[in-house]
């Protein structure tokens, strides 16, 4: 029986919703693809038609949250922010949207968005990474910087960004406030570096 595109999309959404619920209830490590397929009332093989692994499923959830965060950033930004402030706003908006997934964002990003990965195994991860970097590129362009894809600047930014996420995933301070200051600090470091601003003058912040 051929299923319609709508029905396929509906199934996909259902699998994601159930996986999200199970990850939250049982924990990411403790949840298996069998648990998810059983809870969805589908065969395990059918589940793999939609997502080829548990990691891909989780990465898709994380990617969706990141996109929600990015959209929140676009809504929240006024255009009068300094570059540091704008980049911080992007990261902070994403972290807020990612909060429900904090317990498993670490292992997911490790496999899906690692700085060493030439190509991610998850298209959703690739897509969200590209969207994030495009957003950074636009922010930089608005402040007179050119962000060349695959350049050392991208590697530096991505390393800092993943570092923030890594710290955040294990941050036990209330509302992960420690990561908030780390994010701000990291964006300062990034902007100072690309400004070749060794003496740390006030060029990039609150100008």
């Amino acid at each position, binding site marked *: 029986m051929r299923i319609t595109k709508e029905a396929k999309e509906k199934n996909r959404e259902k699998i994601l919703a159930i996986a999200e619920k199970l990850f939250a209830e049982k924990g990411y490590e403790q949840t298996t693809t069998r648990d998810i397929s059983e809870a969805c009332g589908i065969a395990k093989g059918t589940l793999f038609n939609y997502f080829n692994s548990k990691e891909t499923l989780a990465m898709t959830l994380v990617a969706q949250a990141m996109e929600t965060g990015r959209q929140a950033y676009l809504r*929240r930004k006024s255009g009068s*922010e*300094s570059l*540091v*402030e*704008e980049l*911080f*706003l992007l990261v*902070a908006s994403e972290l*807020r949207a990612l909060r429900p997934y904090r317990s498993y964002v670490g292992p997911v990003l490790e496999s899906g968005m690692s700085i060493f990965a030439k190509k991610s195994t998850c298209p959703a991860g690739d897509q969200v990474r590209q969207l994030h970097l495009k957003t950074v590129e636009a922010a930089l362009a608005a402040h007179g910087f050119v962000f060349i894809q695959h350049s050392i600047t991208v590697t530096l930014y991505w390393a800092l960004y993943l570092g923030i996420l890594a*710290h955040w995933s294990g941050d036990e*301070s209330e*509302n992960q*406030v*420690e*990561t*908030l*200051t*780390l994010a*701000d*600090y990291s964006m*300062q470091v990034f*902007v*100072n570096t690309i400004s070749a*601003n060794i003496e*740390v*003058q*006030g*060029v*990039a*912040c*609150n100008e």
Partner: protein
Amino acid sequence: MSRAAGPILSKVQTKRIPASSFLRVCSLSSSQAKIAGYYFSYFLRRQFAEDEKKKLLKNHFHLKSTLQLLGTMGYLRGAIMKAGQLLANLPQIMPHDLIELFESLQFEAPPMHFSLIREVFLDELGKEPEEIFSFFDKNAFAAASLGQVHRARLHDGREVAVKIQYPNIAQTIDADLKALSFLLQTMRFTKDYQYLCLHVQDAREVFLQEVDYVSEASFMEKNRRLFAGSEIVVPRSYPEFSGKRILTMDYLPGKHLQAFLAGNPSQAKRNHFGELISYSLVHSWFRLRTVYADLHPGNYLLMDDGRLGFIDFGCYRVFNEERWKMEIDGEIAMFNDNREQLMHFFTKLTMHDYPEELDPVWVDLAIRQMRWVIAPILTKDQFDFADKEYAEQGATLLKETIKSGYVRTDSFFNWSNRAILGHRALMYRLRSKVDYSTLYKREMEKYS
């Protein structure tokens, strides 16, 4: 900190308070911090007698590690501002020039940018500043201890001041106080080590109270009721727009001391505000049995209509019944010049069992200090707080206290000394002449 500090801020505003100890250890950048480290090292070495040298060497490694930590402190502008204030409460263990150095660092406290403030709002109140206020000024108009203050307008049109705490600052300072305790371990063979630790512990308790803006709002409200109907204005706080790290209160128009003095005010105005500042201290002392540990110019606003704004209530200590009785007995003994009762007070104050155990050198210094403190109370009519001889006497006594290194006193003694010194310094700068005697005795008779 006023906007006048702008040029300094522009140099440092791209630096943020490092959040983790890792970053702090890595931030060995500030020459001021290195100087602070040097001073601390020098000071600590001076504390050890000859026969303690071997023990010091044993602890050298600990000392070195701690100084490395201290070396990072210059980068913790916001934190160091507080650490400086806390340490200033222990002049006996801190050389004065080091306290000054710490205090100078506070002017480098970096402002939070608006994106960071929005995150603090979302975490604390679940809403963005624009949702809570009809207007919110993105630029801070003043620095507060541990944060900054913004002007805003409520939807009903009321003008407010919003105090916002630096994210993670509380944890950072707490870590620094732990580092300080660690540093003090190098002094653990000295006889007063346990009393030093008590003071540090006490400073930590006051600090933890100060970082909780809910607690501050509640004490502010208590003071608002206390001074209602007087010429002292305490702002109303708005609990619905406040949290642990955000405090929204009425905006009070007025000048800080420096700006007031720049207008070359008349002697009558100087006396008037001097009287109000004195009343704020003495009235809360007797009525609430409270000592304000943070009596500095930034906490007062001198208003054009002659009222005095009293705006910061984070740092205080409340006497318990027993300690209060002891304090009053001590004051009465001093007023009556009753040596026996005074020695009894000193014995309790220094946690000894018998007056014979008291160090006579310290007793002599303490009596001279108390005489200096009560001189304005014993002087009939107006007391000239700008009197050169009185000011010089106070400065000499302070130097002597620092030099003595005597730390065996209860913590209230430190706080009340700090409040009195703060008051006298304010009155000196105001060049105020006040009938302090009548004010003090009236309050004492009425409420003690």
